[in-house]
């Protein structure tokens, strides 16, 4: 049974890092990229790190950095995930970033967990 929580206002989101809120028993982080919110459960699927405390970096492709394809590096074991697709970067894994669905109501962000 999912519960709807108020997260924050859309204007509170910043590019480049997550803001983190405690919603019930869950820690949830959100950031924004190209005008779209990205909302995650703050729990790395690899070993349970608070992944929203990781670094958001441009994805390196060949010898270039792709600023429009950010990756999130876990603050513990350093795994990197594509922030758009949620999949691991550079190696195959079935593990994905735990993305959460959100709803916007008058620029307020709501999340179902």
């Amino acid at each position: 049974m999912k519960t709807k929580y108020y997260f924050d206002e859309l204007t509170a989101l910043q590019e480049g890092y997550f803001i983190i809120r405690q919603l019930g028993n869950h820690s949830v982080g959100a950031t924004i990229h190209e005008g779209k919110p990205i909302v995650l459960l703050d729990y790395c699927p690899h070993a349970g790190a608070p992944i929203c405390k990781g670094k958001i970096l441009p994805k390196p492709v060949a010898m270039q950095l792709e600023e429009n394809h950010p990756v999130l590096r876990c603050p513990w074991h350093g795994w990197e995930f594509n922030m758009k697709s949620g999949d691991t970067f550079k190696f195959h894994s079935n593990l994905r970033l735990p993305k959460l669905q959100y709803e916007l109501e008058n620029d307020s962000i709501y999340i179902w967990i």
Partner: protein
Amino acid sequence: MSAKIQAIIDCDVHNTYHSQTQLYPYLQEPWLSRLKERGFGYPPETFFSSIHPKRLDAKPEIGTAGSDYRLFKEQLLDKFSIQYAILTGEGISGVSYMPDSEYPSALASAYNQWMVEEWLDKDERFLGSLHLAIQAPETAAAEIYRWGKHPKVVQINLPAATTLPLAHPFYRPVLRAAAEMDLVIALHFRQPGLSAPSITPVGIPFHYLDYHTLVSLPYQAQLVMLVTSGVLEELPNLKFLMMEGGFIWAIHLLWRFDKEYKALNRLAPALKKLPSEYIYQHFKFGIQPIYEPREASALQRVIEAGELQNSLVFGSDYPHWDADEPDFIRRFIPKEWEQGIFYDNAASWYKFFKQPA
């Protein structure tokens, strides 16, 4: 994941100072001035890593990760059922890789006193381990005798790679003191510097990826020569803990070493039993960083093949980047091994847990 584990001994917890000034009260001249003016002077990190060296969420507001007791309590001790945590220090382990001996010995001694006086009393769950400048073996041995009777000092830390094999007579005063004081000798790899040997026989690793993959090499060399030298017969109370160096390689040694010994035992005349028997009797291995095979249960089959269930101990390595929490390690081992790996195997190793005679 089933319920929490009842009790855990964490054999590898990296505490450190938030500033060199914390050691000032424990140093005398001329070493105090040298620290003030020139810093520790132990080798900095040699290899380039592309990521953070320590967990990003473990950084306190002041100082580096591992220097703040409150975070230890919140992120490790209270979060899990950690009954005892063995403090293994951090940067200070570089004293063994400095080219001189008196200043590094003084730094090690200052660290040990600071650790005993300012960490062990902070929390009854903490146990201590000593750092030593092993290029000065007699001084290092004196340091072991100085603290060895302290009930909560249970271990000495040595770097895994050394200039001579630890079994060489040069280091015998250190091994003898540890055996007499009933302290476990923990080997822990350390980034090398000017005076340290390379961890590989083919020269210096290119970067941290190579280095961190290859760190098991010096542990293997130490183990083999500790066995063949006969020092385990000379000092039967020696107990080694191979921290963070892996353990699957121990299976190679268990099988290859016995095979070689059956032909070549005249080269190791002090031995009274097969090399594998010394390995099971005198060595334990840290389970972290946990091996992560594609199929988790493959690790259990490997451990069973080497009969290593009772030789593994848990060390979290908090707050380093590759630290593993207990519940993560539990995904790779069967439930019936948890009591041994998280508590009993370590309890059998340290004097602190011995019943009074």
